């Protein structure tokens, strides 16, 4: 027993170190991949890489997932695993009940211009899961937030998919979603400190504010900017009398064909 304990302790130490490094390693790997796509020449980008940069990694899509990752790190292991499973379940609900969800969300004004408010709904729900007082209430609400975030992500993937049939796009969206949550959650869990709930609550309040303001701004029709009158005096534009700069053969035909001007019609067609 005593002979095995040092090797067992060493093995446990290695496992603990691996567990601690898994989050940052996952984050670094994903960031390297995203950087490689972003730095690739724009001309050589496929539809998939273009979609990843413009939609899957858009701030409105990433922020709620970051918040969900932080919430998972703060919750107990049982609730975290449950929330992760429910996030997957939410994704499935979103993909398979897309038509039902879209018909429910289409009553929102200008729905198509803001992807059916999927970003704001996710942000507000995840934000509430971070801000709520009491660890128990927060943990229970996290389960609801995970389902909502998953289903909203699925709807957002479906409505932004430019290919409409390429399986790689929803698959990439799901992988990126799980990657963001896992990288944030594992990193925060590995380096957890007693003061973590403070920045987590602040992050939650930002997510709620972002969701409500973005949702509100999306519902209002965009106004034209009211530019102040120019301080520069308007130059006097007076038509200068003189010969027409255009030679006759370049003049528009409607100028030449008019009342009193004979129109030669070799084909014998009637004018409209």
């Amino acid at each position, binding site marked *: 027993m005593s002979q095995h304990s040092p090797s067992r302790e060493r093995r446990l130490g290695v496992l603990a170190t691996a567990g601690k490094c898994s989050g940052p390693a996952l984050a670094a790997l994903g960031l390297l991949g995203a950087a490689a796509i972003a730095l690739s020449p724009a001309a050589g980008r496929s539809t998939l890489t273009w979609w990843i940069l413009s939609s899957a990694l858009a*701030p*409105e899509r990433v*922020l709620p997932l970051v918040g969900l990752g932080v919430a998972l790190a703060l919750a107990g292991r049982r609730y975290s695993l449950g929330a992760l499973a429910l996030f997957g379940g939410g994704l499935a609900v979103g993909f398979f009940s897309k038509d039902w969800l879209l018909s429910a969300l289409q009553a929102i004004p200008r729905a198509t211009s*803001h992807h059916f408010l999927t*970003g704001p709904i996710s942000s507000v729900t995840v934000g509430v899961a971070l*801000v709520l007082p009491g660890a128990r209430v927060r943990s229970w609400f996290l389960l609801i937030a995970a389902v909502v975030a998953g289903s909203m992500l699925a709807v957002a993937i479906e409505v932004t998919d430019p290919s409409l049939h390429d399986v790689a796009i929803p698959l990439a969206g799901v992988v990126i979603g799980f990657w963001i949550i896992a990288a944030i959650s594992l990193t925060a869990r590995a380096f957890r400190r007693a003061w973590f*709930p*403070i*920045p987590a*609550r*602040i*992050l*939650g*309040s*930002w997510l*709620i*504010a*972002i969701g*409500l*303001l*973005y949702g*509100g*701004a*999306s519902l*209002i*029709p*965009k*106004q034209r*900017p*009211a*530019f*102040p009158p120019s301080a520069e005096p308007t130059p006097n534009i007076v038509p200068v009398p003189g010969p027409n700069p255009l030679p006759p053969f370049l003049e528009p035909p409607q100028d030449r064909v008019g009342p009193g001007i004979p129109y030669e019609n070799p084909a014998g067609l009637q004018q409209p």
Partner: protein
Amino acid sequence: MLPDSAAAHITSTGSGGFGSGFAHPLTGPDHFLAMFAVGLWGAQMGGRTVWTLPVTFPLIMVAGGAAGMFGLPLPGVEFGIALSVLALGLAITFAWHPAEWMALCLIAVFAICHGYAHGAELPLAADPADYIIGFVLATGLIHVLGIGVGLGLGKPLGGRLARGLGVLIGLGGIYFLVPAFSVA
């Protein structure tokens, strides 16, 4: 010569995306000082207020933002923004420790003024989503900076360094208040 920084808070032209939203609180000294002071004051009071003030601010800011977006009239916004800098500076200078609800009410009034200024710009923004994300993140980061500085300066010299910063913030408030008063 009077400054016009506070009066320049609400702009009439359209804004851009994430970059201009993020830069807005950082480049507006009145907004920056108020956000910084919220974090600093919360840290100076200690306890729950370390996080309740910075959490309450953006949540109430939404109400002001909505009023600005829908074009509801709110007179004296620039005056309120300038007053927020002065009041928060004074609170830090005198290490005022009111009841939590009182501090939250004060913060809420100021948050409505700051939110209104941002909300009035939002319908003009080229990309409202990115603009909002930018300015909320920047606002929150200034709060966190204020908390960090407040916690760091809380103990050395009996908190006098933090109170000295409060004096500077209060002077900034007077600087913004003079033109804002003339505008109001």
